């Protein structure tokens, strides 16, 4: 079976995968909300870090918990918990970012039975000189809590191994992204997404194994399809693979992304230092930030533009999870930035489910703008 199929299997049976993993290893599974949860530490504790994601199904179960103006991603994730789909979790960890996801965590800790709960007070002012020591303090508390609650010990050796594994995973995923620069990328946007999302659900060792396999397959992987227009995907959370697959049927290919379930998750490495936890904390402070980390967008915008150029994109899909104010703030200036560089943008507003029929016209028209063939 090809590596991509392996990833697709994990996605299709994500909950079963985690249950089997626990069965197999006798280890615990810890769910994470948001990308500021240090998987390195959880893995060093001998546990499986699982990113909690939505399922993109129509639901109303959250309506008595969250005001409907909480972003769809946060409602969708909470719905999964309320439906008992994450009942295999031994704990849940939240990395403080925006109010919406805090609402998800707040209701989760109150209404979904979960043995271990941890709220990591992620500093929101990452440019302050004391941010790193603060987050290191948070992560050390986290280590302590894990050790006390589960009666384990997180050793430096384990931390070193975890740091090394996650750096490798990041390195290999960046190598895969390199292939997407090619004129005819050997991997579609949907497939790349499946790879990255799977990496947030499965055992990092296993993920690395398949990443290596994929890197062997890519050089002579042939896709029987038109590349069409080269697109970039920019926004908050994006795990709706089906949507991306449908879009890529409209004569276009996503060749790069910047969002919190894509490149933003894995791009930056941990730089080893004696204090392992501090080293991990530094990584999460130095990584390029989520827009909810207020102030100065410079960092993020700069990298988005670099990506667009390096991957030679002809258009950018800016998608907005309805009500997600941190990203709403960035969309007008981002649109402006791309305009100045003659890169057309299309903004779509997402809800828990996507009315593809409605979006189709916009996406096709957007692609037609770039297709000279039509005129």
């Amino acid at each position, binding site marked *: 079976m090809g590596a991509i199929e392996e990833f697709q299997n994990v996605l299709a049976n994500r909950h079963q995968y985690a249950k089997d993993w626990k069965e197999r290893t006798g280890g615990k599974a810890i769910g994470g909300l948001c990308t500021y949860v240090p998987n390195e530490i959880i893995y060093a504790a001998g546990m499986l870090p699982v990113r909690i994601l939505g399922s993109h199904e129509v639901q109303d179960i959250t309506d008595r918990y969250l005001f409907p103006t909480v972003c769809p991603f946060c409602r969708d994730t909470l719905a999964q918990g309320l439906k008992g789909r994450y009942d295999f979790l031994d704990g849940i960890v939240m990395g403080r970012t925006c109010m919406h996801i805090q609402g998800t965590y707040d209701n989760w800790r109150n209404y979904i039975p979960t043995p271990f709960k941890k709220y990591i007070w992620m500093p929101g002012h990452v440019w302050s000189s004391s941010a790193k020591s603060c987050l290191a303090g948070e992560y050390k508390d986290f280590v302590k809590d894990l050790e006390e609650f589960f009666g384990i010990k997180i050793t430096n050796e384990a931390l070193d191994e975890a740091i090394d594994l996650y750096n490798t995973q990041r390195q290999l995923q960046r190598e895969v992204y390199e292939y997407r620069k090619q004129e005819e990328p050997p991997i579609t946007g949907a497939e790349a997404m499946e790879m990255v999302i799977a990496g947030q659900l499965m055992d990092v060792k296993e993920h690395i194994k398949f990443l290596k396999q994929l890197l062997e397959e890519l050089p002579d992987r042939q896709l029987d399809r038109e590349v069409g227009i080269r697109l970039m995907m920019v926004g908050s959370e994006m795990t709706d693979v089906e949507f991306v697959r449908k879009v890529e049927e409209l004569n276009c290919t996503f060749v790069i992304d910047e969002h919190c379930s894509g490149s933003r998750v894995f791009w930056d490495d941990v730089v080893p230092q004696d204090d392992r936890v501090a080293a991990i904390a530094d990584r999460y402070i130095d990584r390029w930030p989520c827009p909810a980390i207020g102030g100065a967008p410079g960092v993020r915008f700069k990298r988005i533009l670099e990506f667009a150029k390096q991957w030679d994109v002809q258009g950018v899909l800016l998608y907005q999870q309805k009500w997600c104010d941190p990203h709403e703030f960035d969309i007008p200036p981002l649109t402006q930035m791309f305009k100045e560089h003659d890169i057309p943008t299309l903004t779509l*507003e997402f809800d828990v489910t996507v009315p593809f029929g409605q979006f189709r*016209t*916009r996406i096709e*028209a957007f692609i*037609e*703008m770039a297709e000279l063939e*039509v*005129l």
Partner: protein
Amino acid sequence: MKKGSKMTTEYYRWTEYTWVNPDVDWRKADTVTCGIDVGSVSSQAVVLANSDIFCYSNTRTGSNSPDSAHNALNLALKDTDLKQEDIQFIVGTGYGRVNIPMAKKAITEIACHARGANYMGGPSIKTILDMGGQDLKGIHCDERGKVTQFLMNDKCAAGTGRGMEVMAELLQVPIVDVGQMSLDVAEEPPPVSSTCVIFAKSEAIGLLRSGWTKNMVLAAYCAAMAHRVVGLLERIGIEKDFTITGGISKNIGVTSRILKELGIDDPVPLKPDAQIAGALGASVFARDLLLKSRK
């Protein structure tokens, strides 16, 4: 539960029509192409002989696209000796474009409206407002009618043809009279606070009960609609020249108010018919594609 319970006449319905160009003989033409626009509310078919309009039709969309496409085309050909098989290339557009069996290619109404407006209004047109059955589109294009930027209304049919139909039905006013009636008011009433079809409806009922005339209600509704449209246009920015396509372009009550808010007194008129812009554009594309395929 009888009397007045259900209205007998369907006031929202407008009459379907067709037009044939007497000065064009399709048999002499090198290319005969057609564009079919199956919109959410209305469908049009336009046949080009070379680059001249030979005939067109404007019909109501049924609940299934293939039939609507057939109706539109058959009506367009009704008073001609042109048969469907004589048409060399057909492009489908509009809401139902993917379900138009006779079309060789589907192109979005956004590209088609720009191209159609460019055909009818000339290369100077830069900004197009398309007010259709459920969609509002602000479109920027270049002198060849190629789209450079566009914006659509989000998740709401407020300020669209459907909304206007609901009003016409509620007030029991023939849809074609709505625009003129809305202008026959002593003074402009404050706009209704909601353009959402459902709420505007209940608001309108309230206004009528409080003694407003139908004209005043229509004026208030057209004004609110115009205001919403202008809001959309401001987000995309307006360049000279400006024109309006789509069904509502025929509602002077809305268009005149839009132009007033925008401070535009000389919009480019679209001859012969602003409502066929989409189908016409599709037909022009069909011709391009046909010529291209011959090379």
